[in-house]
């Protein structure tokens, strides 16, 4: 029965694009909406959850906070939120987790951009919080054997992966595995989604979920370590404060402790537990959608076209040596832009809940036009963002 519990949060907010025209001269961002969302999640989620986690000293865990979010918090003067994170890291009970600065899909591209973004993120975390991440999570838990050399090349020896059937092939998610010498912590998707998705679902047979009940499920889980990784916005944004999600978390540490289950930080988990064998990890897995693969970002022709067009601009943009242009291009590498182009939901489901345009086509046209504008700026006519015929 599991004796260890690892609780991790992902905090990220993208730079949503404005309604950009093909003939515009500049890439514009939807500042009013970006600020509105940032303000709302800061007050409803980040501030309250930070102070709850700080007060409740039975809780331990990890945080991946994207560079995109960190810089938006800095730009809008939300030092209260940043200080909250800082105090959590100072307490030693929580530690930062490394990721790509812009929550990008750069791990899928054969270039140095991944290395640069991981480095940028490590520097930002170090500058703001005075600590250095020791474990790594790739964007939306995208994982495969193919990106292991990049992860170890970036200096990380431990990484998170989704407990997808294609990765585990029937093995127990509550164990630590390895791939090419890198430790792999497996996200338990059922126990994660119980909090992340189902917590406030009144039609769920287990509703309402109490810390007591949940802790008993963890205790009864076979294996060494139950890893739960959820959006930080679970608190107060995905589930409103009235749902009781804060109270749930407040009691969780004690309920686990009373059952002899110990909460760990990510590096404690990486150090304390042995590895139970090698995973093949030949296919790409992630925590997205029911498919748990890359299809949330790269399943239709629009997504593949935009993805290729973005990374074709990498070298020309870097060749200009223009930092402002490079930053603008990097904002387009945020995976959210491709996620919004998904046509999987043909009605208001998960994709459209997160899609500010409520429509994949508007999202794609904005993104394409942004790509077109950057192409014009670098004078890159040889390869157009669109087809070349």
């Amino acid at each position: 029965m599991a004796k260890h519990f690892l609780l991790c949060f992902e905090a990220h907010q993208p730079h949503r694009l404005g309604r950009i025209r093909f003939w515009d001269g500049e890439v514009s961002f939807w500042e009013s909406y970006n600020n509105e969302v940032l303000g709302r999640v800061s007050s409803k989620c980040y501030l309250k959850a930070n102070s709850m986690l700080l007060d409740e000293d039975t809780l331990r865990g990890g945080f991946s906070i994207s560079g995109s979010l960190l810089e938006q918090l800095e730009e809008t003067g939300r030092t209260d939120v940043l200080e909250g994170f800082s105090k959590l890291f100072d307490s030693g009970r929580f530690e930062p987790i490394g990721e790509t600065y812009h929550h990008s899909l750069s791990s899928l591209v054969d270039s140095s951009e991944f290395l640069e973004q991981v480095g940028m993120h490590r520097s930002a975390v170090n500058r703001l919080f005075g600590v250095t991440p020791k474990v790594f999570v790739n964007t939306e838990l995208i994982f495969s054997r193919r990106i292991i050399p990049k992860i170890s090349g970036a200096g990380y020896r431990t990484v998170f992966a989704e407990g997808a059937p294609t990765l585990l092939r029937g093995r127990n998610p509550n164990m630590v595995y390895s791939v090419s010498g890198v430790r792999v912590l497996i996200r338990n998707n059922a126990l994660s989604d119980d909090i992340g998705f189902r917590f406030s679902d009144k039609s769920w047979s287990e509703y309402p979920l109490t810390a007591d009940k949940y802790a008993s499920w963890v205790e009864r889980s076979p294996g060494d370590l139950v890893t739960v990784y959820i959006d930080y916005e679970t608190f107060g944004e995905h589930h409103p404060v009235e749902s009781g999600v804060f109270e749930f978390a407040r009691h969780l540490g004690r309920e686990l402790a009373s059952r002899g289950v110990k909460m760990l930080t990510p590096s404690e988990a990486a150090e304390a537990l042995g590895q139970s064998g090698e995973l093949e990890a030949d296919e790409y897995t992630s925590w997205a959608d029911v498919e748990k693969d890359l299809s949330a970002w790269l399943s239709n022709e629009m997504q593949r076209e935009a993805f290729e067009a973005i990374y074709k601009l990498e070298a020309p943009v870097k060749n200009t040596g223009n930092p402002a242009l490079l930053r603008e291009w990097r904002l387009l590498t945020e995976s959210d832009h491709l996620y919004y182009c998904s046509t999987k939901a043909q009605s208001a489901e998960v994709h459209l809940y997160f899609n500010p345009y409520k429509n994949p086509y508007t999202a794609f046209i904005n993104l394409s036009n942004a790509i077109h504008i950057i192409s014009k700026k670098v004078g890159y006519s040889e390869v157009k963002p669109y087809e070349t015929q």
Partner: protein
Amino acid sequence: MFGWEYPPHVVGGLGVHSAELTRRLVSYGVEVDFYKPKIDGSPTDKHIRFMEILLGGAVTPDSYTLKDFNSAVAEYNTKLREKFDPIGVSIIHCHDWIAAEAAVELSQRHGIPLVSTIHSTELDRSAFFYPQKWIMDIERTLIHNSTKVITVSKHEKEMIRRYYGRSDIRVVYNGFNPLPLVKSDYSKRNRVMFIGRVTAQKGPIFLVKAAKRFCEETGGEVVFCGTGSSDFEVRAEATRLGLEGKVRLLGYVDNNEMGYWLTQSDAYVLPAVSEPFGITVLEAMGAGLPAIVSKTTGVAEELFNVLRFDYWDTDELADLMIAVTQSRGLRFTLGLLGRVETSKFSWSRCAEETYAVYKEVVAGG
């Protein structure tokens, strides 16, 4: 059922609707007497009893070609009142305003419930530009004297609520018959097309205005298949904007030629000011062509895989036209998913839902 036209002598969607609807109603066991004026030739269908009204002064003798529309309507209503046979009739179903005066009177005289289907109103047809008050008055009479009113979209339901003051309206969408062709090659054509009557209602002038930017940015062209009262205005505006040769008015084209342009275009555009339904949208999408459609087009309210815009926002329209001609990914995705989505619309569903309204009326609901 009171109609106006019927295949094979058809001007617009009303005739197709009448045929597709009655063919299915008969299969549910409904007996239909279909009243219509004899204009041009007679229907060849045999499933229902056609009660053709012979007009005198409004048509030429021998060929029955329509001479004067207004006097034909008046004569049709007068003769309907005389010729109508109420024996065994449970419902009078009137399509649009043309036979409305007779329908309302006969419904009241014989105590037979009246169902009306509003396919379009005078406001739609005029695009709000000098609507004829006398026609709106007849429409109002029909709408307020019907036991049940059916519209072909929520958009049209809202028109009737707002301008005619009745809100208990049933929406029954039209079906469509897929064209015998499917676009499979999505390589760039640098061309968008318009299909339909070139009238103010369809908003062709907004497409010409948007074409300015579209042609400048892409070097593409806009092709109009169809003809109508706005031909001159569209041509004049194209000339004024320096778009001769880029905006092409082909006039009337037969089905073969239209099929050719459907496969040789990147998108179908309908900038209608107020289109109650828009069967051509489904025909184009059903053939795999991406559709760019105004928000004031009824069918678009039920479609997800279309590009929608405000008909007056010609910058937005231009940007959508550019996007679709520049991106194969966009064309392919819209084409594929749009085609799948059109299967939501069928004449069977239309007939079933109309029949459900009949049953409620007969049951006194």
